[in-house]
């Protein structure tokens, strides 16, 4: 690996073993992985295979069983929490939202890692919030309570919050689970666009082989306790997607 390439790596893991599920079962083989800027990685696998746990480990919410995750060359454990929150964000669509919070208030929370002790917002914060809301097309319902939104609208609001956080690494847990087909296409196009334009690295878990192959640069598959990664165009050839055809009786 040349020096220029290594500078590009945003998130890296070495000999990583992840615990998952309620019983914190450990995955079988440790794996190495590097997320470069400008790339979108699709994370795939059956339900309960440990996709969410993997994302949580990347985000520092779960401690790895073995191995290490480093963010921009520095071990995740060495980051100060607030600085880490300016670089990496995990977005989970299933988060319960408080009934009274408006879209605008929620997206403004994304500026929290940049705010002082009294949680105030600067003009710059307001600009970033508005820009994120425009990018995700949620401005038109900015004052409505999130709880009253449709699932699709809510997914975009969650993304707008993460974009407002201005992170380098974005981890998304099934963002298109509640989206219709046109919106899903639009979402993946948008992910690719912001990854390229903002030099971000994005890992997105999804159940859709179509979107993964069409819009993502790499496909990461968790199957039977092992993690394998291949470029999206070669994943099928290399047998990474064989598990999708397995049938259950």
């Amino acid at each position: 690996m040349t020096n220029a390439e290594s500078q590009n790596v945003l998130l890296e893991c070495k000999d990583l073993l992840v615990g998952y599920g309620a019983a914190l079962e450990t995955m079988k083989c440790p794996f190495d992985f590097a997320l470069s800027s400008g790339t979108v990685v699709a994370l795939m696998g059956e339900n309960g295979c440990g996709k969410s746990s993997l994302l949580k480990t990347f985000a520092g919410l779960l401690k790895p069983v073995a191995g290490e995750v480093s963010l921009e060359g520095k071990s995740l454990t060495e980051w100060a929490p607030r600085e880490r929150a300016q670089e990496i964000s995990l977005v989970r669509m299933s988060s319960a939202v408080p009934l009274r919070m408006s879209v605008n208030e929620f997206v403004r929370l994304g500026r929290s890692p940049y705010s002082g002790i009294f949680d105030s917002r600067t003009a710059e914060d307001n600009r970033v919030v508005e820009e994120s809301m425009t990018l995700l097309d949620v401005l038109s319902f900015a004052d409505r309570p999130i709880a009253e939104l449709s699932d699709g609208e809510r997914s975009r609001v969650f993304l707008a919050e993460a974009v407002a956080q201005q992170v380098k690494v974005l981890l998304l847990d099934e963002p298109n689970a509640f989206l219709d087909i046109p919106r899903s296409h639009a979402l993946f196009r948008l992910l690719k666009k912001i990854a390229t334009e903002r030099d971000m690295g994005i890992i997105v878990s999804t159940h859709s082989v179509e979107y993964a192959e069409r819009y993502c640069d790499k496909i990461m598959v968790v199957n039977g306790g092992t993690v394998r990664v291949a470029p999206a165009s070669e994943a099928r050839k290399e047998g990474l997607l064989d598990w999708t055809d397995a049938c259950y009786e």
Partner: protein
Amino acid sequence: MQRLLIGFIALAVVIVLLCVATLCFGAVNIPFADVVQALFSPGADVSSNILWNLRIPRMIAAILAGASLAVSGLSLQTVFRNPLAGPFVLGISSGASLGVALALLAGIGFGSVGVLGSAALGALLVTLVVMFAATRFAQTGVLLIVGLLTGYFIDSIVSVLIAGNSSESLRVYVAWGMGSFGRVTLGDVWIFVVAVLVGLVMIGVSLRYLNAALLGDDFAHGLGLNVKRSKICVLLGASLLAGATTAFCGPVAFIGIAVPHLAYLLFKTTNHRVLLPGAALCGMALALLGGLFPASVPLNAVLSLVGVPVIMWVLVRGSGARF
């Protein structure tokens, strides 16, 4: 923005008016001119005596109690993500009552550091129980049950303690249990002030956490917050506020659970930068209003008259019940 400005100005005006009313009206009729004179150039006359020894301490007690209970209730509702949480529901006020009962039976007078200390300790003890329950059980429903049960359990301990005692301490305890702002004296009000200030600061420095906590601890963690430390800080602050108020004014019901919803109705925001001061001011106004009624009407009865309709509203609207 305009809503905030109007809301805060209106509240400030109401509070000032209620303060004036608290100073002017009471069991003894003092002409307004005498009140003003006693206020700015206190002499040895009856008016000055009543004003400085009764009405001013009562006003300060109402302001402190209203602000403390409202802020305590709001932060508990946020941290536990439950609209029905509050120092009363979670048993924290009962814990403080136990402390007071023990201190009373041990013969320590009202308002002294001993009573405050044991009340705060009792409140803290229950907070620890609730905190433990909160880490064990994810559903907030379980948490409320634990809080209520703890409250009942402590109330029965207090009953047993009182039953085996002389009629004098029984009388004092029962009087205290009805709640009143009239028991604080100018001599020991500073302890109340300090306790409330410390509690408010502990919650005030956790603003970032309170705003993020509405979406859960994982979310707050993702925003770079030290969830464990902030949570402990907020809960200790909330129990200090509830404990101090209970020690000085008795178990004052409803402000803690009802006022945060009033503040939301007024300001229509979930941002604690607005909601915390807003709730504190609403609490002050409600407490001052309750304190205006003649001493023969128990404070808790007055406050329940205002508090119950608010909680009913929250339940019926359902907006709060699911949060």
